Every structure is written in C-alpha cells, then in structure tokens.
C-alpha cells in the first residue's frame, strides 16, 4: 500500500508543474532548486491548492480527482504540516498550539495531555507554558514538529523546516526529525534544496527540476539508523 500517490499537473503563470511519484513509509524528500515546484506540490497534496489535472491518493484513498471534480478538504485529509518558520500561533501557549492539532480525543485536558506527550518526545516539554515568541528558531521548530504529528496524521508534510536555522541547530534537528518521524510510523514528505539535508533525512530522494521529477533514488542507511515505530505512549504502533 502506498502512503501517497501523486499524479498531477498545475500551471501558474509561466510555470508548469507536471509530476508523478509514489511514497511509501519513512521519509521521502522532494529535493531540487528553489522554484522547482516542491512547495507547490506540498500545497497540492495538502489540498491548499487544486491541481489542473490528475489525482492524489493518501493511503490509497482518493483525496483529489480532477476528472471527477472530487476534492477532500484540507481539514479532512488528516495531514500534519511543518512550515519553514513554524507558524505557531503567537497568541497561544506552546502547549495549546500543539493541543489544537490533537484530533484523536476530545476535551481540553485530554488534548493537552496528548500534546504534552508530544512535546516530551521532541524535547520541548519545558517550553509548554511559554509563548512561541519567546522561543528560539530551533525551539519553535521542535514545537512545530510536535504539532505536525500530534493529530496522528496519515501523512506529515515538512516544507523546508530547517532552512531558517543556523547550521549547528540544523544538524541537531535533522537527527531529531528523523528519529521522531520514524518512531511515530507516520510517512513524511519533506521539501529541501539542501543536498546534505536530503541525504541525511530521506529514505527516498525525489529530485525536482523545473516542475518535473528528474529522478528517484533510495538512500542507503546504516542498519541502526532507523528507529522502530512506537506510539506516543511508548507502545508499539500497528
């Protein structure tokens, strides 16, 4: 079963996106220069934009089918998103930012408990009561990662999550992102134009150039580099 199947076209001005690829479990990296259409592809997968033609399937369920005019709304696609600058809500605490994304339980306290678990997993539990404005860039991205995963999404999309950070923090967060995503068992699509980042984070690298997929390559990883999936409470996932 594919976690994600994309076969879409979209024209914006002179730019013409026409891509087809499939994603399995693990982290798939869309890698290419700026303006290649990587972030546009994420927006189409998330349902923030509609393709001109084609289909998108998440876990073999059709979420976009242009021929049949079928579009599942963004909030019903069960995706998590991590943006370049975090986009944490400045008027809510860190804990409430993450709790807002929790869908699998109702009630404020229950959602906050799940959110706290995710903050612990990304090493940000000590910031729970702070406002995002008081955090550093790296701390904000940890929280953004927790928020992206807290809703038990079917797929998590990361749009250049490290590009606004300095190199030391980037290295630290690469390890964290890979560990947390792989241990969660949620398939991820990550966009980057940094070759080192693509190699270090991805299980599969999908190369982009000028709106086209120019190659797909598996990344060789050491045996011990892939943590085993586990649920937020520490148990094994399905």
């Amino acid at each position, binding site marked *: 079963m594919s976690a994600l199947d994309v076969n879409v076209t979209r024209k914006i001005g002179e730019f013409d996106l026409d891509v087809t690829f499939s994603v399995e479990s693990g982290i798939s990296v869309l890698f290419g220069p700026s303006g290649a259409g990587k972030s546009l592809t994420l927006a189409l997968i998330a349902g*923030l934009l509609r393709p001109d033609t084609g289909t998108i399937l998440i876990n073999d369920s059709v979420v976009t089918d242009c021929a049949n005019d079928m579009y599942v*709304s963004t909030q019903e696609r069960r995706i998590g*998103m991590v*943006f370049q600058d975090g*986009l944490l*809500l400045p*008027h809510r605490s860190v804990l409430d930012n993450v709790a807002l*994304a929790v869908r699998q339980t109702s009630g404020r306290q229950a959602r906050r408990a799940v959110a706290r678990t995710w903050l612990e997993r990304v090493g940000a539990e000590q910031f729970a009561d702070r406002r995002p404005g008081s955090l550093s860039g790296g701390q904000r991205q940890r929280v953004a990662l927790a*928020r992206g995963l807290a*809703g038990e999404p079917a797929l998590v999309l990361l749009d250049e999550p490290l590009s606004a950070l300095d190199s030391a923090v980037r290295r630290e967060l690469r390890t964290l992102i890979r560990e947390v995503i792989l241990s969660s068992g949620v398939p991820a699509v990550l966009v980057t134009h940094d070759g080192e980042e693509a190699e270090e984070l991805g299980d599969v690298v999908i190369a982009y150039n000028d709106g086209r997929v120019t190659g797909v390559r598996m990344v060789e990883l050491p045996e011990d580099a892939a943590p085993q999936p586990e649920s937020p409470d520490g148990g094994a996932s399905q």
Partner: protein
Amino acid sequence: MTGLIPHSWLNSVGIPPWVWNPLAISLHAACEATLIVAVVGITLGYILAKGHFPGRGAIETVLSLPMALPPTVVGYYLLTRMGGPGPIRTAELHLFGHPLTFTFTGIVIAQIVESFPYCLRFSRAAISNVDPRFEQAARAMGLSRWRTALLVTLPLARRGIVAGVAMAFGRTLGDFGATMIISGSVPMATTMPIALYNAVFFGSHEQAMVLAFVQLGVAFVILFGVTRLGKVRAW
C-alpha cells in the same frame, strides 16, 4: 442608564442632571451602537476580506460612504427615510409602533450608520493582513473554517479590530450632525455634543465648559482603556 443611579446620589456627589443626563444618554447610545457595529462590522469585514465574490469593492464603498459624507448629510437621509413615507417608515411602525425619529433608538441608528465604516474598514484591513499560512496550518490541523476564524484569524487580527471598534466608539460619542438632525434635541435624545451646542447657543458658557471638559475626560479614559485592552497579553 439614566435610571441606574439615583439623582439624589448624583446631586450629593456634585454631578448635576444637566451633565449626567446627556452623559448617560451618550454613553448608553454609544455602547448599544458600538456593540451592534462590532458584531456586524467584524463579521462583514471577515466576509469581505476572505470572500471571493463579485462586487466586494462596491459593497465596501457603499457601506463606507458615511465616512466621507458630512454627518448632516447622513442625518438628512436618515430623517427623510425614517421620517418620510416609504418602506422604512412602514417597517418602523410595524416593529416599534411609532416612527424612530426624535427618539433614543433613532440616535442609536444614526450613530450605527456613522460609526460602522470605521469598524468595517479597520477589521477588513486587519483580517486581510493576517498571514494566510497561519490559516492554512490551522486547516491542515483539522480546524473547520469557523474554528479557524475564531481561534486563528480573529485573534491574529485583534489589534486592528480593537482599533476599529475604538474608532467606532469614539465616532458614536462624538457624533453631532447626524444625531442632531435625527433627534432634534428632544430631552430624551440629547447627547453630550448636543447639550454642549445648546449650552453655547443659549449663552451658558460655564455649563458649556464643564460639558466640554467631561467629554474630553470620558473620551480619553475610554479610548485609553480600549487601547490598553488591545495590548494586553502581547506576544
């Protein structure tokens, strides 16, 4: 509001009826008008900022006209529409049993029309300026359009919205032209600006000085408070 505090108490603390009555009418009308303006203005501001439908610009322009018109023109149109024959007067008679000209409700309506554009335009601008990616992130988290609006968009636009409501409130407190025409300075609809005008007109300069100073103080206190409200829990 005039009935909330006994006149004997007001007299004992030295607030004469010629100050308290117009002040109470002004504050009462301003609060009612601003409440209605805030609810409708913010909602419409959101629709105009987020909606994609033809005629948005025309709607905003028409609703903003009172901003650019002399208040007496607004008052004149209200007087002729509400006081003259036609569907509006028929509706007034049907709903209230009497025309709304020269009544307290009449001045509330005049102040709504006068102040509405400020709330609408400030709210629309503030909501338009919210980074849409915050809303996209919220939608991706599973929030509905309504929850996204309430939990994300409006809080992020809060400062502009509060400024708009404050401007609208200030406009209602300070309105003279439209209120004067629609109320005709009858006692139950005499606001502070009209009381000041009457005091000057009838040569009561001491009363005029006091009324002007009270309006200055009230406007400062309320607008300062509203401004502070917009700054609390800054991020």
